[in-house]
């Protein structure tokens, strides 16, 4: 209600009675009690206890109440609360009215206890779908929940969207690509009553389904192809994890398994390579390789990031606040944060051999020859002896910091650049894995340290050796690696930090859970595996709700809980709590199948409604939370690219594999430290889907950023859909999009040799999946003629717009490039209606 008042711009008239629990308690709890409540009592004041509160409240007289004086003051430093926005006039008026009425606290007022009863921490209910008047509208139980609420407000749902709108919507939602003209034609002629359901089943079987649904999951994992921070080195095998996600989704892996593999695949008995690759989820944290960085700080930040990512992804909780202090709003203590932290502190990063099909055989066949040659080169240049000396100096520098500046610097750089450097140096060479030993030798050859640095002759010889080794390496058949996690064998416990300062050690802590959740299994010594299992246990009240809510968010543009990242007390409440619980229960009953969940939602009448706005609903439901219609949503960055490439016929629809680097303007990648890491992809790799674009954290691909792809530094639970002039420039002028317009024009002219109108039909099929109406035809025909006129006047531009080798009329083609640009820039084209 309050929102509506604000919307209408008028102050609500306060009736004689203020509702304490609805109006006053939330205000006291969110704005006052974090400092004057159960946790903290600044100035000894508690506003959660009537006796204490009376120190600043004079019942019956707001004018005499110090509380009102402080909250309505304009003097910074005196005004309460001291941080955040001052209370609004309405809020102050509410408090005044409550005090003037006698400042009555309900007898059972106990805000601390209320938090445990917060809706999302309570067990998931099993509500029966409500009965509705218009039972004919209901296609599945989802609709009963939605319709019941609409009927209670006297609102009718919207009619079903036109057939072709629906086809484009569901095709985009399930595969991320627009329907092809053939799919449009087939659907139009299919008159069977279940034609739509058949389309849904076809799309769920498409291998593009995994690509479409991988992206929001990768947003949560904050996947990227580089380390981040200053050096921002490329992670050449990060894509293995992305592939795993796509495959898991395509195979409809139950969400339970999906969860356990990613958080604890390495702890499963005899894990498969795929299960180890899945732990790459935890490897998407940034790595700071700046040489001066304190390794302890870098690790601390990574562990904190893992805790936060896990909490946001599965629990929908912002536990990050508890990194520094007990959570002020949610019942999560500082200690509990570090109990979560301890799970990840007990793990280490590792790089595993994860060969693709056929790689292992070829690699192993070639390995003996490689090792023989390698040994010869190393011996010839006397490397083993030099390396031994170098290692000794490094070990000495580690043990005696401050003795020698140059060696100190060497060891600092090495810690940053060689993963697990110190551990590696301390391991006896005979006990190192062959791969580790080679890694260390290669580093030595490339960075031989100060002593050799001062002896140019030896330095140059080592450089020569390095060159030969690298050349030899290039001939070795590849054995693809993957980033994974492994348990730390020597783990004994962790230590909390004070105020989130990595240097300020608190108290010892062991892995453990949150008191608001069911207790963890594991005899008091739970591991990451038990943590993962507990997240997807049927009695976990959060994970199923959070997960079904995200699916809903993807399909309707907003979750049943709008703040999909925050199910805590500061998050918004569900618009349809019973529906959320029903979906969560159904999800569990359906074996945590994502595909079944998606099928259920997209076959509902609710999903199939038209997205046109209805003026009469603007005052009743301005942000469409009741879902009396669908919502028009701008496509995410990657899908705008995909739709453009698909319509133009350029798309290379291959699934999976390493990241690609499509053309981008010179100067973009150079902005980062150490210059460009962008090596433009060749051939059809330039036309792969947006999901596969290499994500360089400090200099991301501009089109992704322009269209609100997240920066991939922390978990992102929902994207923004902004609307900026840079987006317009991007779609109008980026050579990638211009090439698509040229290609679309040629495609249309080749496929349809007839009239302009006939060609326009085909262009509409390709881009919007529908027929043009009379006004659109008229306007585009007018533009086409105008464009021909411009071309005739300018003359010289035709050759630049239309390639001469197309075998088509160049003048027509040039004008059609203009028409194609208009179509590909239409708001409707980049929108799911």
């Amino acid at each position, binding site marked *: 209600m309050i*929102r509506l008042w*604000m919307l209408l711009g008028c102050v609500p008239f306060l009736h004689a009675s203020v509702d304490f629990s609805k109006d006053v308690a939330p205000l006291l709890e969110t704005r006052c009690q974090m400092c004057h409540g159960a946790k903290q009592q600044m100035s000894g004041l508690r506003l959660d206890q009537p006796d204490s509160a009376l120190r600043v409240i004079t019942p019956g007289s707001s004018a005499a109440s110090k509380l009102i004086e402080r909250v309505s003051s304009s003097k*910074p430093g005196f005004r309460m609360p*001291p941080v*955040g*926005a001052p209370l609004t006039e309405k809020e102050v008026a509410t408090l005044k009215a409550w005090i003037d009425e006698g400042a009555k606290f309900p007898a059972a007022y106990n805000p601390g206890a209320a938090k445990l009863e917060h809706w999302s921490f309570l067990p998931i209910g099993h509500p029966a779908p409500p009965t509705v008047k218009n039972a004919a509208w209901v296609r599945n139980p989802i609709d009963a929940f939605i319709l019941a609420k609409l009927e209670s407000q006297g609102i009718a749902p919207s009619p079903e969207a036109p057939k072709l709108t629906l086809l484009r919507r569901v095709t985009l939602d399930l595969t991320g690509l627009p329907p092809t003209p053939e799919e449009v034609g087939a659907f139009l002629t299919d008159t069977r009553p279940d034609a739509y359901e058949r389309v849904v089943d076809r799309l769920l079987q498409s291998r593009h389904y995994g690509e479409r649904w991988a992206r929001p999951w990768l947003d949560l994992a904050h996947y990227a192809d580089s380390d*981040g*921070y*200053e050096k*921002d080195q490329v992670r050449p095998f990060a894509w293995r994890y992305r592939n795993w996600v796509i495959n898991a989704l395509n195979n409809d892996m139950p969400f339970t398994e999906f969860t356990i593999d990613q958080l604890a695949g390495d702890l499963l008995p005899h894990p498969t390579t795929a299960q180890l690759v899945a732990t790459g989820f935890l490897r998407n944290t940034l790595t*700071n390789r*700046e*040489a*001066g960085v304190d390794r302890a700080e870098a690790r601390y930040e990574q562990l904190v990031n893992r805790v936060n990512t896990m909490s946001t992804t599965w629990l929908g909780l*912002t536990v990050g606040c508890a990194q520094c202090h007990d959570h002020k709003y949610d019942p999560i203590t500082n200690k509990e944060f570090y109990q979560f932290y301890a799970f990840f502190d007990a793990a280490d990063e590792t790089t595993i051999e994860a060969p693709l099909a056929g790689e292992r055989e070829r690699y192993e066949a070639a390995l003996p020859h490689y090792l023989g040659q390698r040994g010869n080169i190393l011996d010839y240049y006397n490397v083993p002896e030099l390396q031994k000396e170098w290692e000794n100096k490094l070990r000495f520098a580690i043990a005696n910091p401050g003795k020698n*500046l*140059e060696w*100190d*610097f060497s060891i*600092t750089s090495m810690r940053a650049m060689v993963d697990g450097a110190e551990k590696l140096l301390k391991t006896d060479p005979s006990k190192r894995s062959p791969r580790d030993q080679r890694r260390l030798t290669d580093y030595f050859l490339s960075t031989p340290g*100060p002593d050799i*640095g*001062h002896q140019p002759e030896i330095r140059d010889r080592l450089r020569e050796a390095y060159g030969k080794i690298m050349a030899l390496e290039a001939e070795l058949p590849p054995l693809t690696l993957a980033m994974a996690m492994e348990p730390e064998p020597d783990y004994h416990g962790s230590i909390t930090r004070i105020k989130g300062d990595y240097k300020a050690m608190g108290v010892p802590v062991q892995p453990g859970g949150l008191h608001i959740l069911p207790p963890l299994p594991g005899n008091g010594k739970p591991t990451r595996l038990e943590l993962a299992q507990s997240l997807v246990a049927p009695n976990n009240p959060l994970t199923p709700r959070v997960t079904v809510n995200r699916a809903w968010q993807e399909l309707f543009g907003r979750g049943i809980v709008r703040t999909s*990242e*925050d199910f*805590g007390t*500061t998050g918004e409440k569900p618009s349809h709590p019973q529906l959320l619980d029903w979906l969560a229960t159904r999800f569990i009953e359906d074996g945590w199948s994502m595909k079944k969940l998606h099928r259920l939602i997209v076959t509902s009448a609710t999903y199939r409604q038209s*997205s046109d*706005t209805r003026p009469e609903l603007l*005052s009743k439901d301005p942000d469409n939370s009741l879902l009396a219609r669908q919502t028009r949503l*701008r496509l995410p960055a990657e899908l705008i690219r995909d739709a453009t490439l698909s319509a133009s016929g350029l798309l290379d629809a291959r699934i999976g594999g390493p990241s690609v680097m499509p053309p981008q*303007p010179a*100067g973009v990648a150079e902005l*980062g*430290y150490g210059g460009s890491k962008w090596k433009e992809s060749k051939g059809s790799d330039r036309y792969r889907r947006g999901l596969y674009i290499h994500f360089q954290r*400090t200099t991301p691909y501009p089109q992704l950023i322009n269209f609100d792809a997240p*920066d991939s530094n*922390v978990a992102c639970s929902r994207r923004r859909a*902004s*609307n*900026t*002039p*840079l987006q*317009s*420039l991007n779609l*109008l*002028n*980026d050579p990638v999009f*211009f090439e698509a317009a040229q290609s679309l024009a040629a495609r249309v002219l080749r496929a349809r040799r007839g009239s302009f109108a006939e060609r326009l039909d085909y262009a509409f099929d390709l881009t919007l999946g529908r027929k043009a109406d009379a*006004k659109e035809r008229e306007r*585009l025909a007018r*533009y086409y003629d105008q464009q021909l006129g411009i071309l005739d006047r300018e003359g010289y*531009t035709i050759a*630049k*717009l239309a390639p001469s080798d197309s075998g088509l009329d160049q003048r027509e083609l040039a004008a059609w*490039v203009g028409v194609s*640009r*208009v179509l590909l820039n*239409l708001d*409707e084209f980049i929108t799911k209606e």
Partner: protein
Amino acid sequence: MTEREFRLIQTRRSFLTRGAGGIGMLALAELLQGSEGPPNPLAPKKPHFPARAKNVIFMFMEGGPSQMDLFDPKPGLAKWNGRPLPPSMTKGLQLAFIKPTAAVMASPRTFKPYGQSGIEFSDYIPHTASCADDICMVRSMYSEAFNHHPGQLLLMTGSTQFGRPTMGAWVTYGLGSESQNLPGFVVLSSGAGTSGGASNFMSGFLPSHYQGTMFRNSGDPILYLSNPGGVSNQTQRAGLDALRDLNQQRFEKTGDVEIASRIAAYELAFRMQMSAPELLDFSKESKQTLDMYGVGREPTNQFGTNCLLARRLVERGVRFVLMMHASWDDHTNLNKKLKRNCDISDQPAAALLKDLKRTGLLDSTLVIWGGEFGRTPMVEIRNTQDPENAGRDHHPLAYSMWVAGGGMKGGQVIGQTDELGLSIVEDKVHIHDLQATIMHCLGFDHERLTFRHMGRDYRLTDLGGSVVKKMLA
């Protein structure tokens, strides 16, 4: 404004558009003209109280310029030159690369006082020195971050964590933009890449309208600004007219106000395309002006061009100009590298101050010069056999920055460091304090300009910061 309020405005906008008798051309025309707020999130907004500064030019000197070779003379170092300091003086000192036991290096520079104020500057920066009476020199800056990227994040976003909005984004969010044809927050760069890259001008969790727009040094000044090959301005305009009409028709059918915003965005994009050439055209600048900035001659050309562009951007209503120059990270070869950066930037930076003063813009334009930290009094020699190689390490505990114009009081020095420049002995100014003071000059109570994200209100100054009253005019 919280995200919720932001949404409400959007919603109200749609209500107003359609509430008044359906989806009218009239409402759309109004949106396109940007006449009545609040549809345009970049429309000019009033700050909390009357402001001295309307615009900001931040000359961000990436890497940590050496304050004791430029701004903070330390004759006391001579006594210790070549010798380590006693442990009692360096207790608890944490440095990035060197150990506190490293030898002291006295500055080889000579200093002298300038102007009526008599502020001392080194012989490497005579031009900046000639503006002494307009400069408020802060010799007591400090930060907690002793590595580049975290340091830059702290300076730009108030937090060493990745993902917060940058200063330019906060200012544009708070004040909007006066320009109808250009972005509100513009970024210029010179030299090498910076550690922070785009994170120095990202909008973080603020809406992306507030993100800095990079003006590039080669190719299009704004990414994708020029028409693709063969697309003349006439073709572009004719295509945009058709696009607008078709979008308008869809707007009428669906009633989705986002379409109106998209039409407006395309129109602004076109205006940017049309006005950028004028912005970049220096032909109307006098030869004297170009010479003063060092445009057209080395080594000042790039930095001078950016300084002149900064003035022209501010003249055209751009709110926040971030100039990034990299890098001053002189771990080695300090003397030579520092001279090089000074030769590049000293004259143009001074020219900008003088030009702003001449045109009367300095009163309303806040100019900031400085990096994420300073450098140590101790030497860093990575190659012990080559003493010429000497440099200095990162030093966040006591360093210098300067500000001018926009409500700051020139001709004064704030704060003092000890005789070795190791720590601050008077008027410590934390990065958050500087940020609070900048926001104050722009008319904001830094604690009240907030944005709600992940369940709490965030602000530029994180949890700290107080206005440094001494700095204000």
